[in-house]
Structures are given as structure tokens and as C-alpha cells.
């Protein structure tokens, strides 16, 4: 078969820059053939090589007393949770595939992150997801397209996660015009393993056979990694082969078979085939092992006939793994994969010459030094251009709106409204460990095998990040930690998903750098190392770049089952306390955006010391058994937080509070400002005094503001009083997304 000649055009078509081509010539000492060019193009794509972000990522703290495997060393970091148990977790994006085919794009994203976790030898126990779409409210073709994307993505995540039997227990969904045409789909998975079960993605042991296991290779998602490394254009829709179809059933079998095999002594190394499939897994395992790997493509199980070496190597067919087996234990693989009715084949061998050598029917198709291919890709410092920070908000330009109506409006805004339309579609209870189901500040999961209670959350306020990327990223970490604290957990570690626009635009690169530094500051402040993550660049639609979105996934540990705390009020008569200040920062608030249509103003200030003092105090109260509910103030400020505490539980209940705000402060500022480090808690009335004195001891501001009970939410401040019937608040908040998705009109405002 004739292959195309290597011309400058072909090189450019592979997204390889002239300098990069020079580097290839140096590594090979000759011209690459067509297949080799393809291999370099995927390995050195943004998606696989992180060439424009890796230098930034080095700024993350990755070490700590609980870190067993560091970020970057393997597919996912591993964190000690005590008693010989550990967890592996990570987040990954599938933004571009989901834009083209939302159902399959999202589904295969879930499949990919699950493989990343069980590759580590861990049993995946739960998932989360962080999603961003354009607006779903109103009418018109664009809104309908956004709805189709949203519905398709949720259904795809549900399809894959539900079928494979891993509960999806938390996440977030935001709607903003900047994501129109370029939705974000970030998926998170966490697995549990014993220390001695940590598996390595290295090809060790010269002479060890290399096995291919799992689904047959087809022409799926040819060069998907390259695809993720370009802007989305209307032409991308014609990028047909870039879409892969997932088979969660196959993955379930693969997961069980791999864990069964890992429990034997037969495995020397294991690596999933994700982006760049067979290519990436062979050269990376060789590179990590300091060895070479030789495979013959003729032996690879295939779904289609007539596939070229180029196609086989670059295919992104799903549900496949590469396993380095200890010589002499091949029978073990055979037995287990036959039991699970999965394809497997011995395709090659580990050798000592450091080469990734690919044969086809014995004939050499590609021969590249593995380590330089995997490790010596280009790394760039892109030009960064700071965007001026926003002017502080001039309140005089913001007409004070009807606060009663504004609260309804905020609660019905799909970014704040209940996400039950989403998580009802996810099996969030399989594995019988979900102690706090979606709908509270963080999900809480009982890992039965380890007898440990974990809390997990994903957070990122991209509106903040768009106005002040560094502060926004710092807040993302703080908010995640706050959500964990509200659940009774102490944070352990962080995974992140950096979603940005085209890095060749200096402003986008500046946002990336600022966000990374902000996240790093936050991680240091909270003592939470980064265990790994993912970078997704080129998130641009015809309207421009998305708001910078450095999604944070944070996991914490709850020491005792009585510390598990939820966000909603429990009982009439309980005292309501506010930890933190009444606050005043209205800039960058959701109120300003949703009610006044303005994305502007200074982002609230994050003071880590103040934040940590509040978490410390809250946890001390929780440990003392004093706290009945705890909910943080985030989007929508105090009023939204308080309303959510009334309506987010199984039974709704009212509350009456009086805020000690400055007389001169406008009511909308008092209700909806987003000053950080604030938590609304409820406690037994009889214990309120004890709680206040404990707060005082710790120097944490706190005040009793009211009492739980009744059928209304009543808020007073600076001489004004407002009241909302709980049933109406609930109706606006609970059904908002469903109404949008079924094209029903929004609820009318109840008359006062």
C-alpha cells in the first residue's frame, strides 16, 4: 500500500509546526514515514503533550503527607485515607466531542475517566460532573440547540454511569452565553484501593509479553486528540470520524476483568488506551519503564477490515487497555478474559532498546525512541497579556430592584435552581453508600470496603474568573473547601480541570496562568495537593472564548458518621446563626448578572486566613455535635443560601431572621452580596449560647440571626422586612429547569 509522501503541507495538516518537525528529525535521525508523522502529531498535540500548559502546571503543589502517588507520575494521583486504604481520583473534560454529539461525547468522557481510575488498580466507587451550557431559557433556535446539548449530555452521562453501576453523586451545572456552541463537560471519578494494590503504567521486565484487552479497534475518533486541540468551528461538525461511540457494558466487563486480573500476581504494568489509543499507551508505558515495546498490529483485534497502521495506531476506539504481563503468567489473562467474554491478544513484548517499534505482519511500520516521543515534546511559554481588572461597581448605576421579586428570579435562574432534573437521571444510589445525595453542599459517600466516609464537591464560579482569574480561582478552591466543611469533612486533595480558550491569544493565556497561580495559592492555603487533572484549551465558539473555567474537584474525609451534615434546616424552633459577616460586595454577583444583566464589578476578596478560621470553627462545632445544618453562601448571597436551607430538604420549612446590616446599606446589597467566607448554620436553640461562645473563643465572627419555623421565609434588615411563602420559593426553584426543558412558561411571580 502506498502512503502519502511527507510534504510541508502534510506536516502542517498534522498540526506540526516547522520547529517541531525539526525536533522530530533530530529524534529520528531521518525523515518520519506517514505513520510516524501521525504518531508524533497525536503525541505532541496539546491534548496529550500539554505543550502550552505544562510549564504552568508545575506551579501546583503535588506533594504532602498523604500523597502516595504524585500527579503526573501515573494516570491519577493516589491519596492515603488511613488504615491501609487509599483513593485515586481525577477529572477530565470531553468538551469538543460533546459539542458535536452530546450523548456519545459525554458518555465516552465518563468511560475515559473511569478507565483512568481502574488503571490505577482502584475500584471506581463514585462519579461527579461539572457542566456548562449556553442559556436554556427563552425561545429561538440557539436556545433550543443549547437545550439539546444539555439534555444530550445529561442523558449520555446517565447512560454510561448508570449502566456501569458507578453512582453519580454530585456536580454542578451553570448556564452562560459564553458557553454557547462550546459546552463544558468535565467528569470526575474516584476509586478506592489498598496501598499494596497500586498498579503502575510502566512496561517493566524485559521479555514480558504485552497484551491488548477489550474492545476491537475500529476507525473511531481518528485523531480525536488532535481534534481537541483546535478551535471549534462550524466545520468541526463535518469532522465525523472524530466522534466515538461508547459501550458501557463492555467497560463494565473490562473493569471487572482488569480488577480480577490485578488481584492476581500476573500484571507488571497496565495502561488504559485513551486519547491517541494504542500509540500513547505503548510509548508511555515504555517511557515510564525505561524500556522499549514492540508490537505487531496484525495481532490487534479489529472491528473493521483493511485498516492501515496509521489508522490502527491513531484510532480512539473506547474500552481498551494495554497490559504488560509477567512472563509465564499469560494463562491467567486468557482465563479471566475468556470468562468475561472479552477480546484479548498478545500483541508484543517488552525489550531493552528503548524503542517503540510497531510492526505490521512483521514488517516495520514505525520505529521511534519511546522516551523522547513521550517526554521530549515541545514545551512553550506563550505570550500573556493581562486584561485590566474591572473597576469596582458603582452602586449608583444599579437601580435597586424589587428584592422580593429578585429572590424568586434568582432561585429560578437555572444556574441556581435545583438540579433535580439532572441528578434524578443519574443513578446516585447504586453501591449502597450514598449518605448525602445530590442537593446538599457536598455529596457524602460511605466506602463500605474501607469503612471510610468521603465527601466530594466540584466548584468554579467562572463569572469571577472572567473578571479576575486569579481571585476567581482562589475562590474556587475556598468554596470547595467550604462545601466540604459544611458537610463535616476535612479536605484531603484536589483535582482540577482547566477549561480555557485558544492559548495563542495572549489574553487567554494570561487567564490560564492567573488561574493556575490562584488555584496553587488556594491549594497551599488549605493543604490540599493536586492529584491530577486535565487541560482543555481552544474552547472557543464563533462568539469568542468561553469564560475561563478552572473547575475544582475536592475530596475530604469525614471522621465519624455523626459528623455528616447537610445544608437544609431540620426542625422548627432551631436557632439560625450566620458565621462570617453580613457582607457588602455586590460586584461580579449573580444578582447583578441575573437581575441586571451585568457581568461586571470587582470580584469579592478572598482572605484565606479568615476562610480557614471559619471552617475550623464550623468543624469544631460539628465535632461537638452542635450543628444541625450548615450551608455556605455562594451565588445569590445570603438570601439564596437561606432560602435553600428552607427548601432543599425533603420537607420544606420556613425561617425568620433579622440581619444586623448597616442602616445605610441598600437591601439588595445586604441580601445578595457575595462577600466570601459566610456560612448559615442551624443549631438547637438551647445550644445557641454555647455555639456563640465557642465562636468567640476562636475569634470567628458569628451572630444569631433568627429561628427556623413557619411557612414563610421572613427577612428583616435595616428597618425593612420581606416575606416569601415557602411553597412559592420551592416551586420557583425546584421546577425551573424542567419547565425550561419542556418549553413551559416560567412561573408568574406570586403577588405579595
Amino acid at each position, binding site marked *: 500500500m502506498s502512503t502519502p509522501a511527507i510534504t510541508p503541507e502534510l506536516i502542517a495538516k498534522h498540526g506540526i509546526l516547522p520547529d517541531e518537525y525539526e525536533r522530530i528529525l533530530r529524534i529520528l535521525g531521518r525523515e518520519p514515514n506517514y505513520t510516524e508523522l501521525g504518531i508524533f502529531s497525536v503525541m505532541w498535540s496539546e491534548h496529550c503533550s500539554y505543550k502550552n500548559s505544562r510549564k504552568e502546571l508545575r506551579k501546583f503543589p503535588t506533594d504532602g503527607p498523604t500523597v502516595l502517588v504524585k500527579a503526573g507520575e501515573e494516570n491519577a494521583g493516589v491519596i492515603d485515607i488511613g488504615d491501609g486504604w487509599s483513593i485515586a481520583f481525577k477529572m477530565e473534560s470531553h468538551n469538543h466531542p460533546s459539542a458535536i454529539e452530546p450523548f456519545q461525547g459525554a458518555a465516552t468522557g465518563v468511560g475515559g475517566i473511569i478507565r483512568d481510575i481502574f488503571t490505577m488498580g482502584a475500584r471506581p466507587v463514585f462519579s461527579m460532573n461539572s457542566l456548562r451550557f449556553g442559556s436554556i431559557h427563552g425561545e429561538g433556535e440557539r436556545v433550543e440547540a443549547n437545550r439539546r446539548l444539555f439534555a444530550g449530555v445529561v442523558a449520555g452521562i446517565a447512560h454510561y454511569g*448508570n449502566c456501569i453501576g458507578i453512582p453519580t453523586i454530585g456536580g454542578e451545572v451553570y448556564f452562560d452565553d459564553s458557553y454557547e456552541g462550546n459546552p463544558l463537560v468535565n467528569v470526575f471519578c474516584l476509586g478506592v484501593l489498598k496501598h499494596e494494590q497500586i498498579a503502575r503504567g510502566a512496561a517493566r521486565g524485559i521479555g514480558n509479553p504485552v497484551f491488548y484487552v477489550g474492545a476491537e479497534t475500529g476507525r473511531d475518533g481518528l485523531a480525536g486528540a488532535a481534534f481537541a486541540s483546535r478551535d471549534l468551528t462550524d466545520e468541526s461538525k463535518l469532522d465525523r470520524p472524530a466522534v466515538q461511540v461508547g*459501550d*458501557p*457494558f463492555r467497560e*463494565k*466487563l473490562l473493569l471487572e476483568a482488569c480488577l480480577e486480573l490485578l488481584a492476581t500476581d500476573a500484571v507488571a504494568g497496565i495502561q488504559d488506551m485513551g486519547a491517541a489509543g494504542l500509540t500513547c499507551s505503548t510509548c508511555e508505558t515504555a517511557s515510564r519503564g525505561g524500556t522499549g515495546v514492540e508490537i505487531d498490529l496484525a495481532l490487534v483485534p479489529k472491528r473493521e477490515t483493511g485498516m492501515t497502521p496509521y489508522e490502527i495506531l491513531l484510532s480512539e476506539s473506547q474500552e481498551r487497555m494495554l497490559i504488560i504481563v509477567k512472563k509465564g503468567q499469560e494463562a491467567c489473562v486468557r482465563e479471566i478474559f475468556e470468562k468475561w467474554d472479552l477480546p484479548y491478544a498478545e500483541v508484543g513484548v517488552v525489550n531493552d532498546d528503548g524503542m517503540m517499534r510497531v510492526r505490521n505482519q512483521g514488517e516495520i511500520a514505525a520505529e521511534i525512541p519511546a522516551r523522547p516521543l513521550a517526554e521530549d515534546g515541545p514545551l512553550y511559554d506563550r505570550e500573556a497579556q493581562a486584561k485590566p481588572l474591572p473597576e469596582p461597581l458603582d452602586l449608583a448605576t444599579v437601580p435597586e430592584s424589587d428584592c422580593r421579586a429578585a429572590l424568586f428570579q434568582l432561585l429560578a435562574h437555572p444556574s441556581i435552581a435545583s438540579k433535580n432534573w439532572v441528578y*434524578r*437521571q443519574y443513578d446516585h*444510589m447504586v453501591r449502597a453508600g450514598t449518605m448525602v445525595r445530590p442537593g446538599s453542599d457536598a455529596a457524602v459517600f460511605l466506602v463500605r470496603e474501607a469503612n471510610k466516609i468521603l465527601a466530594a464537591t466540584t466548584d468554579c464560579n467562572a463569572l469571577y474568573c472572567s473578571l479576575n482569574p486569579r481571585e476567581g480561582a482562589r475562590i474556587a478552591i475556598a468554596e470547595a473547601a467550604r462545601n466540604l466543611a459544611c458537610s463535616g469533612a476535612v479536605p484531603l486533595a484536589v483535582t482540577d480541570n482547566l477549561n480555557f480558550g485558544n492559548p495563542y491569544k495572549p489574553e487567554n493565556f494570561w487567564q490560564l496562568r492567573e488561574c493556575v497561580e490562584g488555584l496553587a495559592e488556594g491549594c497551599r492555603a488549605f493543604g490540599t495537593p493536586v492529584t491530577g487533572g486535565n487541560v482543555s484549551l481552544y474552547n472557543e465558539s464563533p462568539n469568542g472564548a468561553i469564560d475561563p473555567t478552572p473547575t475544582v474537584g475536592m475530596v475530604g474525609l469525614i471522621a465519624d458518621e455523626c459528623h455528616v451534615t447537610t445544608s437544609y434546616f431540620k426542625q422548627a424552633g432551631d436557632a439560625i446563626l450566620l458565621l462570617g459577616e453580613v457582607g457588602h460586595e455586590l460586584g461580579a454577583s449573580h444578582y447583578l448578572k441575573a437581575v441586571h444583566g451585568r457581568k461586571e464589578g470587582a470580584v469579592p476578596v478572598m482572605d484565606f486566613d479568615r476562610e480557614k478560621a471559619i471552617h475550623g470553627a464550623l468543624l469544631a462545632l460539628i465535632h461537638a455535635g452542635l450543628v444541625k445544618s450548615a450551608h455556605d453562601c455562594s451565588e445569590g448571597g445570603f438570601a439564596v443560601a437561606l432560602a435553600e436551607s428552607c427548601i432543599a430538604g425533603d420537607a420544606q420549612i420556613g425561617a425568620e431572621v433579622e440581619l444586623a446590616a448597616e442602616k445605610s446599606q441598600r437591601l439588595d446589597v445586604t441580601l445578595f452580596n457575595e462577600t466570601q467566607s459566610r456560612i448559615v448554620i442551624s443549631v438547637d436553640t438551647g445550644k445557641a449560647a454555647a455555639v456563640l461562645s465557642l465562636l468567640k473563643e476562636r475569634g470567628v465572627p458569628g451572630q444569631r440571626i433568627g429561628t427556623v419555623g413557619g411557612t414563610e421565609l421572613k427577612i428583616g434588615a435595616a428597618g425593612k422586612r420581606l416575606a416569601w411563602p415557602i411553597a412559592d420559593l420551592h416551586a420557583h426553584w425546584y421546577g425551573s429547569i424542567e419547565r425550561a426543558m419542556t418549553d413551559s412558561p416560567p412561573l408568574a411571580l406570586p403577588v405579595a
Partner: protein
Amino acid sequence: MKAAVIRFPGSNCDQDCHLVLRELGVDVEYVWHKEEYVAGYDLIVLPGGFSYGDYLRCGAIARFSPVMKAVVEAAAKGTLILGICNGFQILCEAGLLPGALIRNRSLHFICEFLNVRVESSATAFTNAAQNGAVLNLPIAHGEGCYVADEETLRSLNANRQVVLRYCNASGIVDPATDPNGSVEGIAGICNLERNVFGMMPHPERACDARIGSRDGRIFFESVLAHLGVQSAA
């Protein structure tokens, strides 16, 4: 007492069922779908999940797995068979229970806690409950809408084979609280001989107060009581 939890490829509630039975002190074993014998068990559980990917129709392919022949034989001999969610779908496909389960009316997969009413405590699976008792149990399915023709329904009702119906918190069967469009709110039925029982809700996810409910224990405790065994927990 000895129980078997069948593992089909794609079963994913097998471990949860196994755990609950173990905690009740039952001698419980997994049985692989390729086995042709399932003798010697007092209870056989077909767990939830997506057997064979649930491609084609839920339970359609599982029904033909080698183990199902043996399950059908065991059922004929009077062994207790409990099908949960996907297990219920398999029992219907296999003809061990009448009717069929189709796509939820909303077309969405639905996962949530809800209430079901015990319609008949005259089964080995519900004898520990009162008739009319309201249980708080989770569901998690995309195809749980029970359908049957008029005649089947009539005989199900006449023979008190409807064991569970979806209801509201006060125990009233109300189309508004029927999550999936099931005819007459049917959530679980048994065969004429009352030894084969299928239900859409997941009792195994409701046996521990830490995860929201203990109401699911009643099904397993009933089986123990029926077999005259003391529960361990």
C-alpha cells in the same frame, strides 16, 4: 438458609444484594451466568443492573443465559426467586412473571426515593409487613413502566398477585406519584404460586439508616421468617 445472587454480565447491584444478605447472617454465594445448575438454594436473587448491556430490551438477552434455565427449573420446584429491577425485567422476559416493563413515560431514567404500599403480605417476601404498610424505597430505572393486558391485570388482581404499588406519603395510590406510568401503579408482582416475586424498587439500597432508609429489610426478613431462620442483625 442458603441464598444465591446471580451475576449476569452487566449486573451491578449484585454486590449490594450480597452484602445485605451476608449482614443478615445468610449463607450467600454468587452464581455466574454460565452455570447450568443452581440447586440447593432457598432463595435466588436476580439483582439489578444492565444484564448484557440491556441492549435490545431489558432482560431480553439475559433470559437466554444458561443459568436462567436452571432458575426456571428451581422456580417450578418452589424455590423462592426474587427479581429486583433488572431482575424483575428478566423474570417477565422469561415468562416467570406476566406482563412487561417498558420505557418510563417521561423517557428519562429516574433515580429517587419514593413510597410503595404493600398490597399483599401473603407472600414469602412480604409476610413481615402489614397489608397497606407504606415503605420508603429508592427506584433507579429507565424502563420500569409495568404493562399487561386487561385479562392479565384482572387475574393479577383477582389472585392478589400485585404485591407493591407506588403511592404517596399517606399510602394513597395516585397517578401523580406514579414515577413511570405503570398501570395501576404496579411496582411489584408475584406469580400464582407466590414463590417468584419481581419488584422495581431496590430494597437492598434501603437496609441501612445511614443511607436513608431501613424499610428494604422487610423483604429479606420476610424470607428469613418464611424459612424459619432467625436474622443475625
